Each structure stands twice: as C-alpha cells, then as structure tokens.
C-alpha cells in the first residue's frame, strides 16, 4: 500500500541544492527520478538549524511519503519527527537513525577518498598534497583519513597538509575562505588539493585552477568546473541513494535499517570523463583500479576514522 500514498519529498541541507556537491547530488537524483517517472516531488532547502524539525514535520503532516533528508545534521530532528509519524517512510543520508520507519544510508567515504588520495600522490610532483575540509566533524575527518591513507600507499614520504574551514554549518558555504586555505596550501608546496567542503569547495577548486595546481572535487562529479584543472572527483552517490529511496517507495519496496555503501556497492568512486581523461595516465588508472579491486575483495582495508575517532596516518 506504500504505492497509494506515494508523494515524495526531499530536504536539502545548509549549502543548498546548488552547492555543486553533496546537496546537488541529492537534487540530481530526485530530478532523474522525476524525469524518468514523471512524478513531481516536494523540496525544501534548510536555511538554519532551527528549521529542520519544522520542515520535516510540515512534509509529514502534509502526507508526503517517502521523505528523503540529506545530511547528518538532520539526525536529531528526524529522531523526533519520525517517531511522531510512524506511517511515513523516511530516509536519512550520512547518519544513522534507529527507528522502524527510517532507512539510514551511510557511505564509506574513506574508500573513495583512498582512491583519489592515490591519484593525488601519483600526480604530485612536489611530494606535497593538500586537503580542505568543510566543517570539522568526524565525517569529514574520515574523508581526510582515507585520502591520507591512499596518498601514503603510493608515496610513504608524502606530506599532506590539512585544513578545516570551520566548526559550524557556515563552513559548507564559504568559498572565500576555502580559496584562502587552498592558496595557503599551494604556497606551502601542495600541487594537488582535495576538498570535502560542499559549497566552500568552489573556492578551493578555483584557487587551485588559478595557481596552476590540481583540485579534486567531491560528492558530485565536479570535473567540469575547471576542465583540465580538476584531477578527478570523489563520487559519493547521494544521487543514487535519493533516486533509490523514491523508486523503492514507489514500488512498495522501501526497506528500513542501515545501508552502507562503499566501493563494493558502487556507492563511492572516482570520476573520469572528457574533462579529466587527459590528466590521468594509464599507470595511474591501473594502479587505482587494482587498489579498488583489493578493497572490494577485502585485501586492503581502509581505516574508518569514525570507528575509533582517530587516524593511523597523517
């Protein structure tokens, strides 16, 4: 009967659906669904923390189902509201909410980051690469940790400079500061800079392009932003997760519980397209593909920062 009251909605997090990154991925997933099945969906962009509960409750109240929510910051609002509306199906991305009507989708960002870390190390001529994170939280540390592991796997002596943009939600949308941080890293010798900073990354990639260094995008495929300057993008298939939630609910197949998406599930990966193909040599691709296979097979295990709040390498 999930079919009868199918009325999908999606809520984007701070940074907005056009952050060219995390939220945009969710947006694209929803759009793809709309195009394929001709079903309209409701959407809302969070502007401040205080709106979260109201937005969720508003959609649930209005009979929307399923409701997909992007972003870890929604977890506590979801806990409250999902309990109030047990008949509504919810999906949260990037956090785990343990309720019988909630599907939690989490990614193994460390695995994808490991691969782009390898590419960065192979591309680097200076032996120094950089990382700019958005908000300083375990999730972003997991990106950083995977990236360092991958880079060190290629070149144990490599230096990885890491900066976080801030400690609040505003850190997702501060390209000026992102550019300043990337410029600083480049001045210290980094020639590849990876960002996991949502809208802030726009400044990071721009600064890298301006300085003739390489940037690495995140979440969505950002290779097109500065063709020839973006080495690759670490893909996190938020779009797929969003699309699947809508589709499963439409088909009456919506499952609850935790879904963990890693390389094996094609939930993360790295982007190759016309914009960056020329930047990646065959050896580079081969090395990364090999590592990918090993990770999938379990031969290489990438440490997840979140498992013990620490990173074995830095």
């Amino acid at each position, binding site marked *: 009967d999930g079919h009868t009251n199918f009325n999908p909605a999606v809520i984007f997090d701070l940074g907005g659906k056009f952050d060219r990154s995390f939220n945009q991925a969710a947006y694209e997933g929803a759009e793809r669904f709309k195009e394929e099945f001709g079903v309209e969906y409701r959407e809302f962009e969070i502007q401040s923390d205080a709106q979260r509960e109201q937005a969720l409750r508003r959609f649930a*109240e209005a009979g929307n189902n399923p409701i997909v929510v992007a972003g870890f910051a929604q977890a506590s609002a979801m806990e409250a509201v999902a309990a109030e509306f047990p008949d509504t199906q919810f999906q949260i991305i990037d956090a785990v909410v343990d309720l019988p009507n909630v599907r939690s989708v989490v990614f193994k960002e460390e695995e994808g980051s490991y691969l782009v870390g390898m590419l960065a190390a192979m591309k680097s001529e200076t032996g120094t690469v950089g990382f700019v994170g958005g908000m*300083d939280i375990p999730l972003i540390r997991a990106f950083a940790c995977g990236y360092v592991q991958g880079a060190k796997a290629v070149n144990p002596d490599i230096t990885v400079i890491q900066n976080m943009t801030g400690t609040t939600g505003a850190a997702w949308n501060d390209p000026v500061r992102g550019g300043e941080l990337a410029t600083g890293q480049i001045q210290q010798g980094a020639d590849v800079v990876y960002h996991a900073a949502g809208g802030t990354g726009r400044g990071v990639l721009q600064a890298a392009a301006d300085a003739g260094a390489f940037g690495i995008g995140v979440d969505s495929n950002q290779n097109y932003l500065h063709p020839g300057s973006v080495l690759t993008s670490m893909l996190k298939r938020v779009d797929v997760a969003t699309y699947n939630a809508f589709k499963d609910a439409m088909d009456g197949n919506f499952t609850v519980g935790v879904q963990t998406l890693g390389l094996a599930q094609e939930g993360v990966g790295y982007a190759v397209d016309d914009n960056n193909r020329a930047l990646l040599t065959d050896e580079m691709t081969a090395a990364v593909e090999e590592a990918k296979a090993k990770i999938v097979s379990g031969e290489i295990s990438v440490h997840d920062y979140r498992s013990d709040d620490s990173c074995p390498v830095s």
Partner: protein
Amino acid sequence: MSKTLPRWADLILIPAINVLLAFFVAGLVVMFIGEDPVHAMGIMIRGALGSDYGIGYTLFYATSFICTGLAVAVAFHASIFNIGGEGQAGVAGIGVALVCLTLDQTHWLLTLPLAILGAMAFGAAWAAVPAYLQARRGSHIVITTIMFNYIASALLVYLLTNIFKMPGSMAPESRRFEDGANIPRLDQMADWIGLDMARSPANISLFVALIACVLVWLLIWRSRLGYEIRAFGFSDKAAVYAGISPFRITMITMLISGALAGLMAINTVMGDLQRLNLDSVLGAGFVGIAVALMGRSHPVGVVLAALLFGVLYQGGAELAFEIPAIPSQMILTIQALVILFTGSLENMVRFPMERLFLFINRGRA
C-alpha cells in the same frame, strides 16, 4: 516631542501607514521575482492563521519576538540601542541548557523556574560587558553589541563542539533533554482542558512572555526605576541633575534588556529544540528591533508587532514550502522594510502629517 500631532496619530496612524508602505514595497519585490503578491499574501495568511497548526507556529515565533522586542524596547526607553539581542539570547541558551541538562531527571515545575533564572542571568551577563564599556568608557554600544553577537556565536560553537557535544554525534549540539525538562506545549495544555489542538512547538513560555510584558509595563510606567530610565532616556544631563546615575541606569537597563532577550531561550531551547544547538535564536534578536520600533516600545505594541512578525515568519515558511521560488529571505526583506519605514524613513510620513494637522488646527482656530 511633537506638539502638532495628536497622540493617536503618533501612536497608531503613522506606524500603520509605515507598515502598509513596507508591505507595499515587499509586494513589489514579490512581483519583481515573478510571483503574484496577492496570491503570496494569501498563502502567508492562511499558512499562519488558517489552521491550529499554523497558529501554533505563529504563537511560537511570536513568543520569541515578544521577549526580544521587549528587550530592545526597554533599552530604547533609556535611549540605548541594544542590537545584541541575538548574542544575549544565544548565550542565554547555555544557561538554559546547563539547568536542563543537570535537572532533567526531575520535573518541569522545578526546571522551568530555574531555567528562566538561568536564561535571564546568562542573557544579562552577556549584556553587562557592552553596558559597562558604554557607561564607563563611552564605547559605542551599537558596535560592541554587534561584536558580542559574533563573540557569542564563537563561544557557542566552542562549547557545543568541545563541551556539550555527545560522543559519536557529528552535529554540534547537546544531548536531548529528558522528560524532566520538557515544558508543556500549548497543544498539551489545551488537552488538559479537553481541547484538541494540532501539535506545534508553541508552549507555556508564551505565558511567561506575556507576564514579562505586564512586568515591563509596570517597570517603565509605574515604578521609580522606570521613571529614572525614561528621564535618563530623554536627557542624560537632566538625569544627572536629578541625581540619577547614568552608570547605574545604563547598567540596570542593559541587564534587564539582556535578561529579557535571554528569556526567549526558554521558548526555543526548552520548548522546541529540547537541546542546545548553534542557531536556536533564529534571528529573533534582530526581529526584536523591528518589533520594538513598530510597537513604539510599548508592551502592547510589542505584543501586536510580535504577532505580526510571528505571522510573517510562519507564513513565510509556508510560502517557502508552497512556492520554492520565494526563498525564506523574503521574510528578512520584509523585516528590513519594516525597520526602514517605521524607523529611519518615519519622517517621510510624519512631516506631511504634521503639516496636515497644523493646517487642520489653524483652520479650526
């Protein structure tokens, strides 16, 4: 101090015309972005007042605005412009959280009064430094309070990421309060008397805010302290002549103002979020300025203006749901226009009015 305008024109007619002008310009903005302002207005009013759910949210927002509006109004009476409500309310949230996190195993009847004290104390404390600097060192309180807003948010971030944060959680927020710190919501209270009302975050602090209105009215117009505050506000030199200490009045007024701003943390932190997070204040500190200006710094005016802004906030949120092309910044714009028209462009209406009334009076004489 106008001799030409009757009281009713000064208190009602001019603000009303100004608010209408503000909404008229806002309507033009809506038209510019390609939407129908009448339709948008309809959505807003229906969204805010058309259902008990909407009314609940409207009252919830209005509660916060009453607190911050009173805060600005009290300071205005002493000719002090407190734009630090945002920071004071934010820091007050810490006070509320400390009380709630410690006592949430008990009962709200115990937690609420203590949380009120905590909120007011923390809010007042955050106002104390700018007040002291103004009173003793003449530092411009408008700029110091703005700075204290920024410092408050840095402090809050520090505390939430380093002290209050739950292990394993990524969001910079405290843990959820237990039942002992859950104050009754309006729908629960309606339930006590057998009424049915949709769930919304409006809660008992609405009554706390209304009591604060009465107390502020007594303070300003009936008490000796209020007499001194108003005298100081009209003329600080004359106040000195009468033995009213500018230092004392500045400090006390700002402490009261900060405490009132802090009071809104009860509504949001305790009444709605039930945990402390980064932006529990939601710009209400700034809305307070518009509310106080529109309400002519009188508690009754403040309540009416707060309700108007409650409608605006809830209706605006509804608008953003219904017409995603109108982002929630629409509310910010209307707020700006209201401040502009009732505050700094006020004379645009007042001057012609004065001339009109002078003309009428001459005609009569």
